[in-house]
């Protein structure tokens, strides 16, 4: 075990002993692995995913609570049902010692049997953003335009940095399409945009004429893979992804200030 892993484990155990809530965007408990002996590992765990919403609009956002409630319900329901990835090359798992052998590789099918509970909470102060918390900032408007694979230009209702980065939505666009908040957050959980017009029924289709908002099994598997980014952490029992070096507040600040994104918001609220 590396020194960083030991420090993480120590912090987690101390928090549990002090009965403090674990912090961070992803908190997992009751982690364990079941090995069926035929190349399939089933990963179990209870995950709490916290998304902090920061209202940066000039005139306020009267419908924010209902949009947040909707987003929380959709995130929880889309992550329900677990995920499955076959042909995963990883290190060999020893079920009797409950550890991975980092000298030997093995190909597994991995069944993610995670119970995920999403919490979408509003924060009022920047000091409430810590470490690599997940954040969704609500702004007045977004000027960023993108060209799709067919050469057509589109406005953006939301914008996100992938894989743990901050997400931003335009309040007016979010009111028109309640799924934008979930779409942007799923970029944070590692999913990409779909532009294939035969997949208009998918939540990650982003050309504006969706017929439905489904998530494929493969996408769910990819998000589970993001949630448990390091499978060897499964052996720790509990897990809190609080990487202080990955500073969400700094990332959000840089993202908001990047003029190519064209964010309009109340700057006085971000000080």
């Amino acid at each position, binding site marked *: 075990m590396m020194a960083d892993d030991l420090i993480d484990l120590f912090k987690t155990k101390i928090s549990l002993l002090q009965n403090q809530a674990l912090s961070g965007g992803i908190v997992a408990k009751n982690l364990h692995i079941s090995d069926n002996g035929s190349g399939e590992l089933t990963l179990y765990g209870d995950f709490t995913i916290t998304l902090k919403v920061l209202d940066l609009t000039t005139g306020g956002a009267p419908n924010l609570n209902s949009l947040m409630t909707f987003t929380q319900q959709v995130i929880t329901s889309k992550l329900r049902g677990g995920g499955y990835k076959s042909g995963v090359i990883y290190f060999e798992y020893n079920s009797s010692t409950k550890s991975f052998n980092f000298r030997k*590789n093995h190909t597994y099918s991995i069944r993610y049997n995670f119970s995920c509970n999403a919490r979408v909470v509003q924060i009022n102060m920047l000091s409430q953003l810590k470490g690599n918390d997940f954040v969704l900032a609500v702004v007045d408007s977004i000027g960023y335009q993108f060209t799709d694979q067919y050469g057509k230009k589109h406005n953006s209702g939301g*914008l996100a940095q992938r894989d743990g980065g901050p997400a931003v939505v335009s309040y007016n666009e979010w009111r028109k399409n309640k799924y934008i908040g979930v779409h942007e957050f799923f970029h944070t959980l590692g999913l990409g945009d779909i532009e294939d017009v035969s997949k208009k029924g998918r939540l990650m289709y*982003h050309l504006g004429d969706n017929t439905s908002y489904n998530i494929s099994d493969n996408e769910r598997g990819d998000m589970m893979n*993001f949630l448990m980014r390091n499978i060897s952490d499964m052996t720790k029992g509990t897990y809190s992804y609080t990487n202080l070096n990955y500073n969400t507040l700094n990332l959000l600040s840089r993202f908001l200030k990047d003029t190519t994104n064209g964010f309009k918001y109340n700057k006085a609220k971000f000080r």
Partner: protein
Amino acid sequence: MVSNTIKLSLGSILFFLFVACINENKINIKAQKKNSLPDSCRYYAYDARQIISNLSCYNCHIRRGERLNNILSFDELATMDSSKLVNFVFIKRHNGNYSMKGAFKTNRMDTLSDCEIKNAIHYIKDYGRDIPMP
């Protein structure tokens, strides 16, 4: 005599047209070979991401700021230049394990087309660029 001359001339024209057509085809074939990737090789981030996902790269190359068992993280891969990446990712570093006869032949990389390899490299490079996603 006149008709024979006309027949000979027409025959010659037809022959030269035939030869010209064959040569033109040969020139086209040579031109196509020059560009090894077909025109249809376009980059779609979603498809490129599927390649990375199907090869399960993220399990060992953890996305950001952390190494598993001293294996380069994915954002560290993104800082390499493209030609080094092709060599590092697809040829040398995986020690042939992902080849048709390798230990992980079910996930073999040698089934990827040139276009898929190019797009996978493009995706890895983009990872370090933090391109906003609408």
